[in-house]
């Protein structure tokens, strides 16, 4: 038995089918767009410092310079800034003078391209290059109180300034290398940085908020560490967390990743020394 439809009926059915196809296509396109925007980069208006994801108590600890334990590291650096080192007994202050004037904005543009190294170098590397080249003193070891102190003291001079790292044309290829590392799945858990900090930002992992992962306050005081640590310590932590082999301190890979993270956070104000849980 065949169903006979009037001309009017056939027209209505055709319209319905077209509409259904259109709606399905629209849903597909929006879903695809959504996935792209989620997996892509965070727009400038949506950038959010991890400061805002902390408890009111931790925020109060960071905001009060006499309660912020990171300020102890800054004080340590302030003393080292004036302390002579090397055979010529020269201090940082002998060349650079008052850090409040000469070091303002320096941390906001690091990692910065170094023509001698032909790659971007981090603030820690810059301090050690200056130490080896100008002071002729032994370089400071990573995560030593002295290197953390000097880095925190220099970075503290840029507190409140917007991040500008990666603006240099010569840094561009390294930003791209850092972006690749950020998006690359790694470790036994097969997770990329982006899998959590871009795709699931604002969500929760084991009850804790997932921040966007902007390096706005390094070196920072981490309550879990009970001490101040560098961004590279944090990155190596995260790599161990996904059961991947972490890159060495001072490796070009970590510098590129740092550069990309700073470029990704450009515009956000620096908070050094920040407090994080």
């Amino acid at each position, binding site marked *: 038995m065949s169903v006979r439809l009037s001309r009017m009926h056939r027209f209505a059915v055709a319209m319905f089918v077209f509409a259904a196809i259109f709606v399905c296509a629209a849903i597909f396109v929006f879903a695809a767009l959504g996935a792209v925007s989620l997996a892509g980069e965070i727009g400038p208006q949506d950038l959010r410092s991890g400061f805002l994801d902390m408890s009111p108590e931790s925020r109060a600890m960071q905001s009060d*310079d*006499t*309660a912020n*334990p990171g*300020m*102890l590291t800054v*004080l*340590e650096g302030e003393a080292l800034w004036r302390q002579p080192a090397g055979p010529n007994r020269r201090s940082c202050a002998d060349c650079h003078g008052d850090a409040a004037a000469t070091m303002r904005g320096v941390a906001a543009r690091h990692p910065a391209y170094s023509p001698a190294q032909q790659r971007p170098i981090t603030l820690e590397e810059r301090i050690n290059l200056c130490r080896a080249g100008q002071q002729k003193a032994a370089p400071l070891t990573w995560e030593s109180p002295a290197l953390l102190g000097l880095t925190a003291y220099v970075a503290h001079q840029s507190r409140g300034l917007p991040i500008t790292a990666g603006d240099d044309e010569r840094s561009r290829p390294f930003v791209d290398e850092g972006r690749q590392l950020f998006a690359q799945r790694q470790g036994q858990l097969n997770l990329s940085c982006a899998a959590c900090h871009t795709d699931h930002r604002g969500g929760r992992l084991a009850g804790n908020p997932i921040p966007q992962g902007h390096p706005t306050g390094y070196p920072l005081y981490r*309550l879990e560490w*009970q*001490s101040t640590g560098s961004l590279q310590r944090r990155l190596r932590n995260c790599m161990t967390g996904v059961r991947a082999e972490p890159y060495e301190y001072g490796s070009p890979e970590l510098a590129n990743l740092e550069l990309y993270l700073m470029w990704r956070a450009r515009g956000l104000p620096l908070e050094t020394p920040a407090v994080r849980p």
Partner: protein
Amino acid sequence: MARALINVPKAAKRGEVIEIRALISHPMESGFRPDESGKLVPRSIIKTFSCAYNGEEIFRADFFPAVAANPFVSFTTLASASGTLSFTWVSDTGETQTETRPITVE
């Protein structure tokens, strides 16, 4: 010498309640943590903290291994007279650090 951050109001009115905050850098090693080789890191903590106002003790606290690194203490007192507040931390190895801050009371 460990670095300390102390917050005392520079000036206060007589009879006013003032808040005093003291933060000192110290690892507060509990003695229960193993190092990379598996051996226990020897205990190293601050045992007591005290504050004296013109020589008279106004606050004292005993610390224990469960206190976090870089201990932060906040307390209040009555501003009674101009003079100095002295802060003393004593570690369990007997090391002592004392810091002083002036206060003007009108």
